[in-house]
């Protein structure tokens, strides 16, 4: 391509960061040293342009090394990957973890999202402001949406650019810990809590999805093998791919990411497509506020995901799978890397897996702070090295997904049910849970509860059951409301604890399970402030592609702000609630993707179900 770059050059450090990812420069036409060969030949066609899917990783490499993406570094990434600088810039400026301005090497991202709000993040921020100045990159700390550490709320993530970079999730976050991370670097912090800390049930008998968490060394494939690991894959290899799909269909496994689509149908329709290659994508971009269940698996039992994806790849005829991992899960990233490398060394990935004749490779792509990338088509764009903007459907992923090819995209938890199904058989699996919701289910239980964490229950438990498992609200407090399904979900009242947490039960009660968030608020929490935080979240996370969501989320936040500032003027409040309904409806009806369509759900339920805005004085 006839690309044009400014004269800005990458520093040696920036080059090194990119070269370690992509290999040393290959000639003068691709950003490297010009040699005599370059006088007579150049290959800057299709092959050169086919490497765009490294853009995210290359930007990570630079950002993680020097803390920001300079014009020279951006040019170098563009030259190495044959991508126009304006294109690289458009990607870099889409993701919150990347910076296109100079900023300090050490930054702490302090979660101010709803679960952390319920557990004191406001006070932490107020103290930080006193100690460090207002939140800004220059002052070393920033506000962050949900970091997925809700069981240890309030949470923060400390990062330090360098070689190697350091990243550390802090929870519960204290001002002292944050200050220490800034002064001495994240390495000075005490070790992160072990993965099992997220799972209060860890070690209990009868768990299916979480049975290894806390019981095995998650970095050890031998531990994994000793606890039924790869039994599911062996069973799958005894079947034809079509039979594997039949078993999954028989299991009636529904997607656990939020949309509750039957996994077997998804696999089958993808496998039927004539176009090849087909791809498998694992959606590990768990970013729904209040959601942290996938992290528990990724950190506590990473080989389970590798095995699950290998089975899925075998079933749908994919030879390549991608794990799209949210950028805020540094430990999960390290552990997945280890698991993939180990599995490959032991013949569980790569060519001719365990003599089956089936070959499968896995690659990780890290997100960089964009909730929207959990949308099933935005994730493709992000993997391919584009902005994480959702695509218009149709075509659906099974027809034209990653790289325009038939693709299955499944959530981590969904996939991790597959080895169970293989081992038990689909029909047996389907006996777990209820008629409409089969299998075990993970719930992310957080907020004002005694024992927040990830809980596994067979489908059929009620909301009350799950809250009881988590110890209920602390003594002396009263449950005020529960948010189900996260920011895109809806509130229910404290008197609705008998709602069955099944897909059909939620539907019958006009609410949603979403990604399995059960976020409890006791009577100390100001719900209007929670609504504002949710509105702020959607305004910040809207990709900006379509008007209803791009502008609607802004107007929604503005109206809520007006209501907050102006509680006594009932006429004005009435007008603003009407405006919220108008804006909410167009977002729901006319946004391109689920983000915009759901951006008003929680606010709507708070108004209609809780009467929050009418009630507030």
């Amino acid at each position: 391509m006839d690309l044009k770059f400014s004269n800005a050059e990458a520093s040696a450090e920036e080059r090194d960061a990119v070269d370690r990812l992509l290999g040393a420069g290959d000639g003068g036409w691709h950003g490297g040293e010009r040699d005599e060969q370059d006088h007579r030949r150049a290959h800057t066609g299709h092959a050169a342009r086919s490497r765009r899917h490294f853009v995210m990783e290359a930007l990570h490499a630079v950002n993680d090394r020097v803390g920001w993406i300079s014009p020279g570094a951006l040019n170098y990434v563009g030259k190495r990957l044959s991508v126009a600088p304006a294109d690289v810039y458009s990607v870099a400026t889409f993701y919150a973890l990347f910076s296109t301005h100079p900023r300090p090497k050490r930054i702490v991202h302090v979660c101010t999202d709803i679960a952390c709000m319920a557990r004191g993040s406001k006070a932490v921020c107020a103290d930080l402001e006193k100690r460090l100045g207002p939140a800004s990159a220059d002052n070393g700390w920033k506000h962050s949406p949900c970091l997925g550490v809700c069981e240890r709320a309030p949470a923060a993530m400390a990062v330090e650019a360098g070689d190697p970079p350091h990243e550390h999730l802090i929870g519960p976050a204290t001002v002292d810990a944050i200050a220490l991370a800034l002064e001495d670097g994240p390495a000075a912090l005490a070790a992160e809590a072990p993965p099992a800390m997220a799972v209060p049930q860890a070690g209990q008998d009868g768990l299916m999805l979480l049975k290894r968490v806390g019981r095995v060394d998650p970095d050890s494939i031998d531990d994994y093998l000793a606890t039924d690991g790869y039994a599911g894959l062996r069973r799958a290899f005894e079947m034809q791919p079509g039979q594997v799909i039949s078993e999954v269909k028989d299991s009636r496994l529904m997607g656990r990411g939020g949309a509750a689509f039957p996994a077997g149908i998804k696999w089958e329709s993808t496998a039927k497509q004539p176009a090849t290659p087909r791809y498998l994508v694992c959606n590990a971009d768990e970013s729904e506020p209040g959601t942290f269940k996938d992290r528990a698996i990724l950190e506590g039992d990473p080989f389970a995901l590798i095995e699950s994806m290998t089975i899925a790849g075998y079933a749908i005829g994919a030879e390549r799978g991608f794990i799209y991992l949210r950028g805020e899960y540094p430990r999960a990233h390290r552990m997945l890397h280890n698991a993939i490398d180990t599995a490959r060394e032991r013949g569980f990935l790569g060519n001719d897996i365990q003599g089956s004749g089936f070959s499968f490779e896995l690659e990780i792509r890290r997100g960089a702070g964009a909730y929207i990338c959990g949308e099933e088509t935005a994730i493709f764009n992000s993997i391919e090295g584009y902005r994480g903007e959702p695509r218009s459907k149709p075509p659906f992923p099974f027809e034209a997904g990653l790289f325009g090819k038939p693709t299955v995209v499944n959530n981590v938890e969904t996939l991790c049910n597959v080895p169970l199904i293989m081992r038990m058989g689909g029909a047996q699996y389907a006996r777990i849970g209820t008629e409409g919701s089969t299998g075990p289910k993970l719930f992310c239980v957080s907020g004002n509860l005694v024992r927040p964490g990830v809980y596994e229950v067979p489908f059929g438990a009620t909301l009350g059951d799950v809250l009881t498992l988590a110890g209920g609200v602390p003594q002396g407090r009263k449950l005020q409301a529960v948010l189900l399904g996260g920011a895109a979900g809806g509130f229910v009242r404290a008197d609705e604890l008998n709602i069955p947490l099944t897909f059909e039960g939620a539907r019958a009660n006009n609410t949603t399970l979403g990604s399995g968030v059960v976020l409890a608020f006791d009577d100390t929490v100001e719900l209007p402030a929670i609504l504002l935080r949710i509105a702020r979240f959607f305004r910040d996370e809207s990709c900006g592609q379509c008007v209803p969501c791009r502008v609607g989320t802004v107007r929604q936040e503005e109206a809520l702000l007006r209501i907050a500032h102006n509680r006594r003027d009932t006429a004005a409040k009435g007008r603003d609630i009407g405006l919220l309904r108008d804006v909410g409806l167009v977002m729901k009806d006319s946004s391109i993707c689920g983000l915009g369509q759901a951006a008003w759900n929680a606010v709507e339920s708070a108004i209609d179900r809780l009467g929050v805005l009418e009630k507030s004085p």
Partner: protein
Amino acid sequence: MHVFGAGGGTSSYREAEDADLLVFWGSNAREAHPIFFHHALKAIHKGAKVYAVDPRRAKTAEWADAWLGLDVGTDVALAYGIGREIIHAGLVNEAFVANATTGFEEYIAACEPWTLEVTSRETGVPADLIRQLAHDYAKAERAQICWTLGITEHHNGTDNVRSLCNLALLTGHVGRWGSGLVPLRGQNNVQGGGDMGAIPKNLPGFQDVGNADHRAKFERLWNVTMPPKYGMTLSEMMHAMDEGHLTNLYIIGENPVQSDADSNAVGKRLENLDHVVVQDIFLTKTASYADVVLPSTAAWCESEGTFTNSERRVQLVRKALEPPGSAKDDIEIMRLIAERLGRGWPEQTAEQIWDELRAVSPRHHGMSYRLLAERGGLQWPFPDENGPESPFLHGRLWEKDPEKRGQLAPFGTPKHSLPVDKLDDEFPLRLTTGRRLTDYNTGVQSGGFNSPIRFGACVDLSPEDMARLDVNEGEWVRISSRRGSVLAPVRREPGLRPGLLFMACNFPDEVDVNALTIEANDPISGTAEFKATAVKVEKTNEVPTWERNVFTKLGREKQELAPAE
């Protein structure tokens, strides 16, 4: 392309979108024909492979899966090397060659010496690339070779074209949808001018002046007797001026004093003529040599008529503006001259004259103004108003019936011949010339707008040559050939290799590039060897007066991007 018996590109632009392989040979279409390149880009995004054969790695080559950086003037050799490889790899389209061509045995013999090694040595192109291009071109389902002045502006331009035609014949990449030979015309109406008979041997519609039957048609129409004598090519005219046979010249819409090779010589010739008439929209440098200047209208916006483009599409040109001052339509000027010469030509509209043409040119016969307007132009041949259009030519060569197949296409056996202006110790560098995206010809028209991406006059040097000469971008050098010498600022261009220089021809007032070029003309087309001049370059402290115009763009390029505040 007399190989096929008609002078026009074989394919329509739309076909490029369906090609599997595009070879840009001596064509920087990305800059010189940007909108044609849009069609190529469609193909590229559908997966088509692109090869670029060009001494420079120009913008087009930057899109190529493989760029072959040959030495200037070794095109015939490279084509033989490719042809030989196709033959030896058994990739010849045997059926097509047997049915549709002649002279294959002679062609094989001519190819034989050009092994990959020999070709590589002669052209500078790595052998593996030659082989790869040969195989990909031969194996492609649909492949086109597109060329421009990089092929034709040589002393043996016709031989170069012939060499490319040979490759198409060898592989059957002609006469089919998506396959073809695509000469991209440099000027808006080169095709139309040729079609209308502005070629020494032709009457309108590619009818031969030497053919009595053809002549008779026109003689009847115009009620005159026509001399059966061919006219002169431009280079023949130059020669005739030198000899003193040609003493009067009527120049319409040309600026030869700046656009022709060895421009100093052209000026001297004009000075010596008895009478020079220049008809132009501007008072060009050539006009300053004229005894009489006839101000004319800008054909594309101040008068009516047709242009014919590189895909043989005749399109209507319409009047949008009233011409300034005393400027007159070309038709009206001709009529007034005829009147002074005692011929009472009637006042005619452009459409009436077009209809007259249609009456005598079968391939234009169906093209009424009404249809041209309705269809956004029509591609010739279009003999019948109700007939189909002709997106590509020479489909007849694929006919089973020899009758329908008509005259077979002959292979040629051109000789490889290096540029006339030889490199030696005194003039060791090769200068090639061309056009930039933002500029056009001698800049008379394109100079009118303030292009933010205009470099202005400069000489492009490879980074290696800049280091050797110890010059930085923006510094001045003196470039000299055996004929002349100019000053120009340096621009760094990594697309050039050591020893290869490039200058745009678009700023003759500042840097008269054609003071350097050689008037070595192709014997058939009459085109000069603009693409190959032997020069030397010296660092200098001299700076001409026009330098203030130059640096804005070069200066801009140097600024580093600062992050937004």
